[in-house]
């Protein structure tokens, strides 16, 4: 018998006795029963995400402010590129890491800096010296101020987490209401072949491990900027 068979055997043996449903006490049914599949129903109990695009932007902005994500909404691509150039100058970027993409390619060209392309098989020590990582994303989540990056849409696993500043380029149409909608989008988009990594990123890297005092940039980026148009 393999360990797999042993463990599954013990589980099946154990499950021959059934356990009471959660919230059941002394024969009384729980006050709120929830027999249906969750999330569709449970969504209504979670923090709200906003119905219209304007409401969603407002939520995303509020969450970003609290998380110290820099979120900017522009009327055009040119404005976003201009803002990116300002970041380059104010932080003195010498080199960035990026991946090829519909949004990243023109932005990287407009920046006029040396670019380490993650898809061409990069040297990790070289990526470590890059001042910023420029990526796209799959969705912006209004409910929590989260963005979704994957190993396929955002240039692999490292470019969005290794450099000290993560800059995300996004389009207005990528805003979704809540986590349930975002995960549904991921499932629709990738169900035939999922990327090996799907990450929900909410704010720059942080820790509270020293006296519960917030410090940004524990291991990942110290800064997170979302430029959306």
């Amino acid at each position: 018998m393999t360990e797999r068979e042993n463990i599954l055997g013990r589980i099946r043996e154990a499950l021959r006795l059934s356990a009471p449903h959660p919230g059941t006490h002394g024969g009384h049914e729980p006050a709120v029963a929830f027999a249906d599949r969750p999330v569709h129903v449970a969504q209504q109990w979670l923090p709200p995400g906003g119905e219209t695009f304007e409401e969603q932007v407002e939520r995303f902005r509020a969450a970003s402010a609290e998380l110290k994500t820099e979120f900017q909404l522009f009327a055009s691509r040119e404005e976003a590129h201009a803002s990116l150039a300002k970041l380059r100058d104010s932080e003195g970027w010498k080199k960035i890491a990026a991946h090829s993409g519909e949004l990243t390619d023109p932005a990287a060209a407009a920046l006029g800096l040396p670019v380490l392309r993650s898809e061409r098989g990069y040297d990790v020590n070289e990526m470590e010296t890059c001042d910023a990582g420029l990526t796209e994303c799959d969705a912006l989540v209004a409910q929590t101020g989260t963005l979704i990056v994957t190993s396929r849409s955002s240039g692999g696993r490292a470019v969005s987490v290794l450099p000290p500043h993560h800059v995300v380029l996004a389009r207005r149409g990528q805003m979704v209401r809540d986590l349930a909608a975002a995960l549904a989008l991921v499932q629709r988009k990738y169900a035939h072949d999922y990327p090996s990594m799907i990450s929900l990123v909410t704010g720059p890297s942080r820790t509270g491990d020293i006296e519960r005092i917030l410090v940004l940039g524990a291991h990942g980026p110290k800064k997170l900027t979302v430029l959306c148009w």
Partner: protein
Amino acid sequence: MSASSQARDFSAKARVITRDLRHRGLIQTALKKYEVARGRKASAFNDWQSARQAAAETKWDAINHLDTYLEELVAKLEARGTKVHWASTATQAREIILGIIKSKNARCIIKSKAMTAEEIHLNDAMEKQGYEVVESDLGEYIVQLRHEPPYHIVFPAMHLTRDDISDLFQRELGSAPTREPEELTMIARRALRKKYLAADIGITGANFAIAETGMISITENEGNARLTAALPKTMISLLGIEKVLPKMEDLALFLPMLATAGAGQAITCYNTMYGGPRQPGESDGPEEYHVVLLDNRRTELLADPEQRDALHCIRCGACLNVCPIFRNVGGHTYGTTYSGPIGSVITPHLRGLQDWKHLSASSSLCGACTETCPVKIDLHHHLLHNRRNASVEKPSSLERFAYKMFAFVANRPGLWQFSKEIARLLQPLHPLVKGTALDPAKSWTATRELAPVADESFKEWWRNRR
């Protein structure tokens, strides 16, 4: 009635630490901040209580169909090139992981936070074989440098001040002294970046395992697990078999619940799903991905339907944070991997009822744990269940004798009356021996007052009032 050595150790440590005002101050400060943040985030939910019920029922579904969901999870993981290993015991899990490390000729191992790895004492095993193992979560890194186990399942270094940590870094890393948490964090960041770039193997834990899509979900704030999963050539995730969730969409509920209950955040900074090694067309990621599924007596807990819901636990640590016992004795006093109410409930199942039953007795049964639990585990009733099971399994002869004596006296009105008279006569003499070895009520009176025997019983009062 002989106490286990674990019980004696618990009492001895508790006696010292409950009088330690510095420790008390640190815990109170840390947990007060948590309480405020948590209250604020829970109130952002439209209905926190209904969300708890939904989470509890989802976990009920997962645990009560565990065999089906595990098979689905494993089939999906293997289909995309992940190697899945099954371990019935801690020893097997360690051997599997050491085997992988050996086959890769690895030297340096980077680890992100995993309580399951603490449970099987993985670091010790790897270090004994001569491998360099570095914890990358800041709190875990700090306690590793101090050669200590984590103090709390979510906040490993909660018991230390910035000065303690500065002294530690000066001693271990040769850094300059500082009182700035930010500076201390950056010292660790620089030291650990070097380790990341050199590591051959990355080991992580897991918070959830999604059966529907075959993915391991890891929750963190620092980005250390992201790096652990991105840079080394081989990645290993170690998780208990109870981590399964049926569907990906369940995360829309569980990620906010875990963050809110665990740390007072709306959602943690990074919540990442891993579905395999680097896939064709991807630019980086490990060449090999290993998932180790650990039983280690979880199936014994599963076989107890009364306490099966303890396997619903998502390790948020909320029950520790609200527990008056935890807040007084602290995390290290328990002597267990999982401390606080959930630790007191499950440790007897994982490591032996008679050795660990004292943890279930060390409770005020206030129910704060049950009330706060985001997946509605009936924690304080399970403490009672453990007490009952322990005494049914191994009755205490002294207790049985005491109750027999009581029944004998209480069933004879004359004798009962006589014993009351004696008590009234003797009680004025009690202060002479109070709290000393001669005191028959010593275990009570050492820290508390004994209620005086009333001058008049109700029966006497009723008779006299006519």
